[in-house]
């Protein structure tokens, strides 16, 4: 286990390094001039030169990169060109916003997967209709889903709010995860408000992955119920229910878990779009403004955070996978 964690920590470093190189090179190749973005198009030449020197942009590229790395090791992601604030400060409230949304979306995806996998194994017209509906929903891009949900649940039914993370920002909690902050402050109304804001965006991001996951899980379950070990269990007088829960479910979860790891990664990127639609003040929104203003430190910061989250997530999935299937060895 220790060896595994060490190895994953190593790969985290490698991923972060290559991401930073990639972003750095892209920024240099790109036409956009960060200093112009910083000062505005009509700034005097002197100011431009000074700003260039201030950000170290007049130095050779390798030196610039080295400086960036040194800062990174000290926990400094640099200064945003467009907002003139440290990127770490900017990210401090965006990261929890996106992670909170991501956690809920993953949670919804699992629920959808389990429920649908159950529906898949049933027979009859109702199950057919449900499968069709979810299949069509899953094939729609997430921005379309998000818009549809807004139309239905916000404009027509007024069930859920449509914009932002919270209605009344009364709690200024320690974690930045609003539901948790509300609970910590003993303000249940605040938590509930946060939950209501979370439902639509999380749902929009989770339907596609959930349906995909459901198919893998349902396949695994039906394979498991027809397997030789299920036959053995039957021949030893185990009930169908017991076979499903004691044997098939656990065996079916390992392919579903591997799939889950992949889906979680791609869901992170789909959140960028969802955040735009729901005006969710998270990494996605931040990233899209940063890209348009050639704000390299900001873009790099977000990329590094997402990369780290992805590596940690895969490591977690692998650990759970090894717990579920004794044949899997952590490596």
């Amino acid at each position, binding site marked *: 286990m220790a060896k595994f964690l060490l190895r994953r920590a190593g790969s985290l470093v490698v991923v972060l390094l290559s991401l930073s190189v990639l972003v750095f090179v892209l920024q240099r190749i790109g036409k956009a001039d960060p200093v112009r973005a910083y000062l505005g198009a009509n700034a005097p030449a002197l100011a431009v030169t000074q700003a260039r020197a201030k950000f170290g942009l007049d130095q050779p590229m390798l030196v610039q990169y080295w400086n960036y790395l040194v800062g990174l090791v000290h926990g400094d992601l640099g200064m945003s060109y467009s907002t003139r604030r440290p990127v770490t400060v900017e990210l401090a409230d965006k990261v929890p916003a996106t992670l909170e949304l991501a956690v809920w979306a993953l949670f919804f995806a699992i629920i959808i997967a389990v429920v649908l996998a159950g529906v898949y194994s049933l027979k009859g017209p109702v199950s057919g209709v449900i499968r069709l509906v979810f299949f069509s929903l899953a094939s729609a891009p997430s921005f379309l889903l998000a818009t549809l949900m807004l139309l239905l649940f916000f404009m027509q039914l007024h069930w859920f709010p449509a914009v932002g993370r919270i209605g009344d920002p009364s709690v200024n909690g320690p974690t930045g995860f609003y539901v948790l902050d509300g609970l910590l402050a003993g303000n249940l109304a605040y938590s509930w408000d946060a939950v209501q804001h979370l439902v639509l965006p999380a749902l929009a991001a989770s339907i596609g992955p959930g349906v995909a996951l459901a198919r893998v899980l349902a396949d695994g379950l039906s394979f498991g119920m027809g397997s030789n*070990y299920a036959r*053995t269990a*039957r*021949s*030893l*007088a*185990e009930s169908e229910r017991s076979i499903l829960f004691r044997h098939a479910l656990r065996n079916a979860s390992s392919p579903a878990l591997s799939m889950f790891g992949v889906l979680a990664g791609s869901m992170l990127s789909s959140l960028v779009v969802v955040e735009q639609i729901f005006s969710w003040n998270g990494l996605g929104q931040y990233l899209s403004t940063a890209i348009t203003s050639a704000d390299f430190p900001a873009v790099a910061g977000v990329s590094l955070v997402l990369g780290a989250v992805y590596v940690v997530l895969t490591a977690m999935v692998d650990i759970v996978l090894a717990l579920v299937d004794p044949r899997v060895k952590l*490596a």
Partner: protein
Amino acid sequence: MTPVLDVSEMSISYGSRTPALLAVSDVSFTVDSGQCLGVVGESGSGKSTTGLAIQGLLTRDSSVTSTGSITIAGTELDPVLETGWRQVRGRKVTTVFQDPMSSLDPTMTVGRMLTFVTGSKAESLRWLEEVELRNPAVVYGSYPHQLSGGMRQRVMIALALARRPALLIADEPTTALDVSVQAQILKLLRREQAALGCGIVFVTHDLGVAKAMCDDIVVMRKGRIVERGSATRVFASPESDYARHLMESRLTMATDRHRPVGLPEPTVVSAMVEALNENRAVDEDSAAPDATASEVAVPDATEPPAVTAEWEAKALLWSRFRPEPAVRDGEPEAILEFAGVSKSFHTGGGRRGRKPVLFSVSLRVEERESVALVGESGSGKSTILRIAAGLETADSGSVRRPRLHADDIQVIFQDAGASLTPWLTVGQLLTERVRNSKRGGAKSRAEIDELVGVAMDRVSLDRELLRSKPGLLSGGQRQRVAIARAIVIPPAILLCDEPTSALDVSTASTVLNLLNLLRHSLGISVLFVTHDLAAARVISDRILVISDGRIIESVLSEDVGESVSSDYGRRLLDAVLS
């Protein structure tokens, strides 16, 4: 005394297949306490369906229909209706299944599985001891993949016996195991049966196992029982044609290795006639200048009835098919030679994690010679074959294939179905082989078609099948297609990796007969890898016994029974069921 199992006029059909398949038709038999009844048959005989029915494992699929009844320990049951089975299945009748790896839940420890049945850890440990597992406490905490095949099957037996059933179904319980492990498992089953006094239904395709294990036998074919009686009687003097055919196909250490195995088969006979006529044509050609001599030299017994009669009379010897005299000048030349070959494989455990599989192996296959490599799983025998084929390279030592180029080496694998490209027809597969070869590449369409047709004749497959895809063929047919592909351009050496072990008894004997015919009539050398000493003896001139990556003995097939001297070799010999 009432029997523990009474199957009465049972018929079962699968409605989901089109046309509906009548798998079992009007089958009746009984089993008493302490009796072991063998249900013997080849694939498609209905023996497996019978086995499933008497465990009540056909009640989930509503498309399966049945007539007749099953009475287990006094409870009358319907083969396909769940009513009443709940009190019987898993309590009065339990099963030891074929493949213990897939039949045990990979995510569950042996202890958890067993305690579900026994109710307590102490009782589980006692059962693990009962089935002669060393170190029961360790096995108790192990997962199936951490155990060997034999250990897994012992666990399976413990699971099945722990409820003290009145009836035990053994569904090919030793088929997936090594021969020496097989003998131990059979011994264990017999001992436990004596201790518990349960009746056993032993479903198997392996006649040797049935003979060793069973008191009585029913022989099934196409869903019907074609013969029944005491094991001794059925094996000694089978009454039905089919049973006689099966018994004759069985390979033992007493099988005459100089002539074809089993009873005459029209398909093999036609291939033989073909070969004889070809030889005669060659003789005529070579003797052409002297017309009178050729008339005298040419034998005329080359019509199928004559060959059949000769075979039936046990007078047809393989030596007849040799086109030229076996005596040659000087030393026979080696065609494949290993000298001190070692090989190890990565096990993935770090940089130094290598597992040695071969230790300084030396062997020699001469022109026209057939050598069998006999060993159990993990002995390294398949690795030798793969190195000989050039599919793997040796770590050290030398592999010489004098005068051989790619065309001259062909391999036939155990699972022929998997080695045939599923979307190509048999004809395309064979044609492709000819086109990709050096000798056949430049041939015209008509010449290739002729070659392909002749190859089909040689393995006694109907030329009509050239238009079929492998998926539509039976296991035996697919194996013969694989052989046809290997010999369509006759190689100098044929490497065979257990080509008969996945086949039914009679199909296996056909394949062995064809291989023997090909090696005698075409003069092909053979390296034959197998775990079955009896098969090795029939197909080869010389047998190499291999164990743990070392060749420990080399004996002539002619007198293998007497001349095997190593302990391991004797153990393999003892494992061949008479």
